[in-house]
């Protein structure tokens, strides 16, 4: 079946046509201007701009915190989706309803609220301060803000899959005597992995570019807690568009690669799934 799927289903031209034209207007043309602007620099200048020690340090901070935050969100997202789909318990509908709330709050407001909670005078910060742990104004704080920003991604990509996933598989496996853990890893996990990866990729990309919530909680100390979007912002303040777009382009390529990889894994694993059926 894999090889033989010719275009039997009608409507290909229309679907692809609409997709490509909207994509060009909204995404491709504006992105082209980013590249055009960056191209004003010679390769040597471009390289010099993006390899300054402070810029490099900011890449490290941004990548590290974004990765940590999206990893936390990936694990918590799968657990949340599982709990919301499989279990019945009081207040479940309310929990389910809240997942998108972080999106609606302007990121700056989220940043201010999180900072006041996690500063050593805040409700949560006071508790951790007793153990000598500081959250706000450290990389931990940045990660907290990014976790908040990325909560909905993984939950909402995994949830539809779990909902559609037929429990007869598991029941069959259960009847055949497979243990719960084995059922999870061998039956359910492969099904939700592609979706979880997509969610992870999106959350990661979003976290890399996040600015509004992070600047309030980060402390913004160069080399320590300075994120790349902040550097871009300071370039803009100096009317230095070319440096800003160069650094932005690096971020963009990084995000693109990560998304491309997750998409690759996703389509590979869905092929395996279909082959297995």
């Amino acid at each position, binding site marked *: 079946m894999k090889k033989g799927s010719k*275009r039997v289903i009608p409507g290909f031209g229309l679907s692809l046509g609409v997709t490509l034209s909207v994509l060009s207007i909204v995404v491709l043309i*504006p992105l082209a201007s980013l590249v055009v602007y960056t191209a004003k620099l010679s390769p040597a200048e471009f390289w010099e701009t993006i390899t300054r020690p402070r810029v490099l340090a900011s890449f490290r901070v941004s990548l590290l915190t974004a990765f940590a935050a999206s990893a936390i969100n990936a694990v918590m997202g799968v657990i*949340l989706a599982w709990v919301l789909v499989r279990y019945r318990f009081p207040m479940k509908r309310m929990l389910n309803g809240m997942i998108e709330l972080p999106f609606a*709050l302007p990121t700056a407001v989220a940043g201010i609220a999180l900072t006041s909670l996690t500063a050593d005078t805040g409700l949560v910060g006071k508790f951790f301060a007793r153990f000598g742990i500081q959250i706000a104004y450290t990389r931990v704080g940045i990660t907290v803000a990014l976790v*908040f920003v990325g909560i909905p991604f993984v939950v909402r990509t995994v949830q539809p899959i779990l909902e559609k996933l037929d429990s007869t598989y598991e029941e069959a496996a259960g009847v055949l005597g497979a243990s719960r853990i084995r059922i999870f890893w061998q039956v359910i996990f492969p099904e939700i992995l592609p979706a979880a990866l997509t969610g992870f990729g999106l959350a990661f990309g979003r976290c890399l570019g996040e600015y509004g919530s992070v600047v309030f909680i980060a402390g913004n100390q160069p080399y320590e807690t300075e994120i790349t*979007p902040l550097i871009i912002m300071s370039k803009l303040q100096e009317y230095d568009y070319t440096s800003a777009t160069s650094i932005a382009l690096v971020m963009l390529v990084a*995000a693109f690669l990560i998304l491309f990889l997750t998409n690759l894994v996703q389509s590979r694993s869905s092929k395996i799934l279909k082959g297995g059926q």
Partner: protein
Amino acid sequence: MHEETVGSKIVKWVLIGVSVLFLVVMLLLPLATVISEALRDGWKTYQAAVTDKYTVKAVLLTLEATAIAVGVNTVFGVFAALAVTKYQFRGKKVLTTLIDVPVTISPIIAGLIFLLTFGRQSVIYPLLHDLGIHVVFAVPGIVLATIFVTFPFVSRELIPVLESQGTDEEEAAALMGANAWTIFRKVTFPHIKWALLYGVVLCAARAMGEFGAVSVLSGHLRGRTNTLPLHVEILFNEFQYVPAFAASSILVLMAIVILVIRSLIEHRGGKRDS
């Protein structure tokens, strides 16, 4: 479902406990902070802040931009998801990745690239200017930015579902002679309706809260191009701490309304399904 063993019960409640704790600390506490700061100076101040003329205008503009962005992205998302999952063609992976790209672009850069494309320094600006079309620093720019940042949300929800569903049913229907629209309505749509709902809600929530990209493109003209998140920022920068949080609480409320509507639809749909 089969009977629950003691072990699975423990797992169940541990997982629920972890989830609830996570959501309370990461989600409810920050939101509660917003509400409590908004009400810090009492109900009267709050009321004055949310009924302010410019706050109301900002709410309306936010609703307008959100509605358009959701509409465009829903149409686009459905077509894109179908194109990617139901047909074979070259460059598919690049296409899916390109669709995701807007989420990963720093909102400030997103705003900036629209500025460079349609603003005064762009090659097409004289043309737009002569035609009297205002893109940047006017409502169309805000709408464009909002569409951009929420671009993949609908298609992203649909693609995994359509992928795991496969193409067998559609192919069968096509062989029986159904046209594209009928196939979509009768075969595909029932599979994706919940995912579509999630996508639309996700998109709406994000569109309402978008700040960075819109802030670059709006020009902050009070009463004209200020969306609610921008209005919040201005209040905040004006040392109007409490009114800023009051305006933010409107956004939280708007999100809650959307989420309640979704949960109602889900509830009704769920009843019919079972």
